[in-house]
């Protein structure tokens, strides 16, 4: 009843806001562009990752565009969709041809096709600083700005985890199904930035029990930049991204997808950590110091990590990766082990060459003793791990070379090397070879891999990008990989490959058609419940047709049809499909905007699930799996109350054919699973 009342209030509130108008188009435009980009970047990653940090960064550069007459390339790297080759081509062009007069000049730069230029334009500007005039940009922050965002969300149907009462003794969720998120930013231009995140996930306690001070997760960072020789300084939570991610890469990382250039990682070095992900970051103090062509980044981090206790006392068997603290077991495992990480990264840059080296130690207060499984035979054991790596990137005449070689002391080696080459004005090729030994290990390892991290894998990835005209482009890749040692649910050395092809046609600015096909083949244990598992081939074919079009002013439409065929061994052969229709109201000059989706889907099981990116409230994201048979609906509304305050609301629902949804503690008796979100933002 409480939830029905809440929902009615929500509807009333939203309708009230829609009745008023004011002018504010920029943020709306920004949200659409950023969401489209995130969808391309995130692509196949699903909902296990947090995209809020990259979203925040893109929104920032949309609001305060990068001056391509001033940048040294670092900000362009942060956008994530430009390759190093493209960035280098832009800087070289500027050096040779002089400063840009207009963004139209981008078309003259080698490697800049129309799709790239269209992606880039919202995030750049061209200053009028020519012939020694003082640099001026039309859109910079002149004074400090506070930014507070509060988000509330909940699932309206109670799942089994909330129905079980504590006194029955069964595992259950200790907190309410509500989700709270508070985000605060203060930016003082040209000096520092303060970022604070506070979060409570559904099922976690709030001002009670283990979280008697309120939220379950707190994160804060104070970031200073451009202080003479101190290029960057972060106190609090930070991320370090160096080389190709074999040794040290915290925060979000992209790999395979339709943006092929992301296979070559472009490390951002030290950055404040502003994501709500509870796992992939460092906490302490770190700084980047510049001396001539050298950059030195010493860092130290101390965190209390979630860990599962091992059988013997004073040890643990694995680190937690979910960030959930809902049940008594999850709460018991929370902050169960102390982790120290400290080290140094050195980088040297001269002309088109950048080389670097890093060394760091990870130290736990308890010993890590993985479970006695054969696939864990080469996993890291102990309480101290030394990691080191060297990395490089070099650009010459349209050829970009990159790579990293890493070593974990008392363990193995890992190396990745690749190239991107513009082999003609409309064709580029990317190749990447990887060789990761089975006993190589690093705790912040996010190297390019088919598996979840860069170890126990060998492979060759080859991709082609073709832009035959301004209106068309095609990308394709083939990735072959081998796992020399056993993996979880793979009781033998295994191999597979991944093929991808995507053709995009944009006949006009109002229409975009894309066709995509992806085929993946891997080996897994057979489904039979045997003591000894044989490996079976698991095949996944995915085909997608998507059309975006707009024939009415301010209204855009998007349709997608996705088909999937999943086959494992000789017995399992599943088909699935999903179709959606989106209507996006783009309120240029209006205070409100919104979008709606209705989707139909049918898949034989969770194995043939289909992921689809969903629009959400600002900095929120939704990437759910559509599986089994049902309907999906969601609606987002944004309303600008004043130039300082904006509100977002979202309602989303799955309506399934089956009378029971989910399993275990997430089981819901009923066909409907719906959730609401509401978010306020104050900027002053």
């Amino acid at each position, binding site marked *: 009843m409480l939830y029905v009342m809440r929902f009615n209030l929500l509807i009333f509130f939203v309708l009230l806001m829609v009745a008023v108008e004011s002018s504010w188009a920029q943020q709306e435009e920004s949200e659409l562009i950023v969401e489209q980009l995130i969808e391309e970047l995130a692509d196949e990653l699903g909902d296990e990752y947090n995209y809020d940090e990259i979203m925040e960064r893109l929104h920032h550069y949309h609001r305060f565009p990068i001056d391509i007459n001033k940048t040294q390339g670092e900000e362009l790297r942060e956008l994530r969709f430009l390759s190093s080759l493209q960035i280098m081509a832009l800087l070289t062009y500027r050096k040779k041809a002089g400063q840009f007069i207009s963004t139209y000049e981008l078309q003259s730069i080698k490697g800049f096709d129309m799709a790239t230029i269209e992606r880039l334009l919202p995030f750049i500007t061209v200053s009028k600083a020519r012939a020694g005039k003082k640099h001026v940009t039309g859109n910079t922050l002149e004074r400090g700005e506070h930014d507070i965002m509060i988000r509330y969300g909940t699932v309206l149907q109670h799942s089994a985890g909330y129905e079980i009462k504590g006194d029955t003794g069964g595992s259950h969720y200790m907190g309410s199904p509500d989700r709270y998120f508070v985000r605060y930013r203060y930016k003082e231009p040209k000096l520092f930035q303060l970022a604070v995140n506070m979060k409570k996930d559904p099922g976690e306690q709030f001002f009670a029990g283990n979280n008697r001070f309120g939220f379950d997760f707190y994160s804060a960072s104070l970031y200073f930049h451009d202080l003479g020789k101190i290029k960057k300084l972060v106190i609090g939570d930070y991320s370090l991204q160096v080389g190709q991610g074999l040794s040290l890469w915290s925060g979000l990382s992209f790999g395979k997808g339709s943006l092929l250039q992301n296979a070559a990682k472009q490390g951002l070095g030290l950055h404040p950590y502003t994501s709500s992900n509870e796992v992939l970051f460092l906490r302490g103090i770190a700084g980047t110091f510049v001396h001539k062509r050298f950059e030195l980044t010493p860092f130290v981090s101390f965190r209390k990590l979630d860990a599962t206790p091992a059988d013997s006392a004073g040890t643990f068997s694995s680190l937690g990766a979910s960030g959930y603290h809902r049940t008594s077991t999850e709460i018991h495992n929370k902050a169960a082990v102390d982790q120290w990480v400290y080290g140094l990264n050195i980088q040297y840059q001269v002309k088109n060459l950048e080389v670097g080296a890093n060394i760091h130690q990870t130290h736990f207060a308890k010993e890590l003793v993985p479970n006695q499984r054969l696939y864990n035979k080469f996993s890291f054991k102990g309480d101290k791990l030394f990691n080191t790596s060297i990395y490089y990137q070099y650009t010459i005449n349209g050829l970009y070379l990159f790579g990293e070689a890493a070593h974990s002391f008392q363990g193995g080696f890992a190396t990745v090397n690749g190239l991107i080459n513009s082999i*003609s004005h409309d064709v580029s090729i990317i190749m990447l070879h990887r060789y990761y030994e089975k006993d190589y290990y690093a705790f912040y390892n996010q190297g390019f891999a088919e598996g979840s991290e860069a170890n126990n894998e060998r492979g060759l990835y*080859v991709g082609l990008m073709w832009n035959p005209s301004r209106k068309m482009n095609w990308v394709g890749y*083939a990735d072959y990989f081998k796992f020399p040692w056993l993996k979880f649910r793979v009781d033998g050395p295994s191999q597979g490959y991944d093929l991808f092809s995507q053709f995009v046609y944009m006949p006009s600015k109002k229409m975009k058609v894309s066709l995509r096909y992806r085929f993946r083949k891997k080996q897994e244990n057979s489904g039979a419940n045997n003591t000894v598992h044989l490996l079976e081939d698991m095949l996944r074919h995915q085909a997608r047709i998507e059309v975006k079009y707009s024939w009415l002013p301010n209204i855009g439409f998007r349709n997608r049809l996705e088909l999937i065929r999943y086959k494992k061994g000789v017995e399992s052969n599943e088909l699935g499909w999903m179709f959606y229709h989106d209507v996006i109201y783009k309120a240029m000059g209006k205070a409100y905007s919104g979008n709606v989706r209705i989707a139909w889907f049918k898949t034989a099981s969770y194995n043939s699930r289909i992921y689809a990116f969903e629009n959400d409230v600002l900095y929120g994201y939704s990437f759910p799996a559509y599986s089994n048979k049902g309907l999906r609906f969601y609606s987002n509304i944004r309303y600008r109350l004043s130039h300082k305050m904006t509100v977002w609301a979202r309602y989303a629902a799955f309506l399934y054919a089956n009378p029971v949804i989910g399993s275990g503690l997430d089981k819901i008796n009923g066909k409907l699973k719906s959730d609401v979100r509401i978010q306020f933002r104050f900027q002053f």
Partner: protein
Amino acid sequence: MCQPYKLLLIICITLNANAQVNRGAPRVTALGNTGASLQGVYALAANQAGIAKLKKAALAAMYVEHFIGSEIRSHAGMALVPGRLGVMGMYVGKYGLQDAYSELKAGLSYARMFGPRLAMALTMNYHQLKIPKYGLNNTFSAEVGIQYFFNERWTIGGHFANPGNFSFNNEAYAEIPVRVQLGTNYRFSDQVLICVDGKYSFHDKGVDGSMGLEYKLIEWFVLRGGISVNHFKQYTGFGFSYHQLSFDAAATIHPRLGISPQVALCYAF
């Protein structure tokens, strides 16, 4: 390697010959085995219509080691002579294990242009299968090839191998593949050529797709790479040319069976 094992291996490979064993020339191999629309002397081992435009006589020889360590090899010699009425070509190739198994194929091709854009070729082949101590078998087959040049950059081609479904007699369980291959290539610039082929094999009812890229790094040196999807294989190679002489090398990388390197030498008069 002991003889029984060799024999078993070759029988296994021969039974699935279309999919696993590539007897094309290095340039074609390195391009993912995409030979349907390619030109040059090595078209004699792929789509013979690709010799119709050639103006110079040429001789070529090639060598393949199938799956390093298996001792299965192919040797082949090719020759072509342009004439007033078209281009004549000859291919003689041998495939097998020394003293254990051998397949001989000798083909005579005739190719000519029909107008500036259309090329066609007809090939007659003689096949001999020999297994010492077991016997010897002979048969004939034909191949038909066609290529069409839309312009200097874009070509399509089709090739039908053994349309009459000729085979060895029942004593020998070895097939002469019946296969249709369609392909296209596009020259993006003087440096870049991309080829795409699709094949259908009537015996195993399998469809294969392949793709290759040739990149001329400098005037006398090219790099090549390709993939095929059914079965999944990767290909790589390079080529040198020096005046009338050219040298090509390629490797087929099969995920399970390993690497098959090959080399070829060609002299154009």
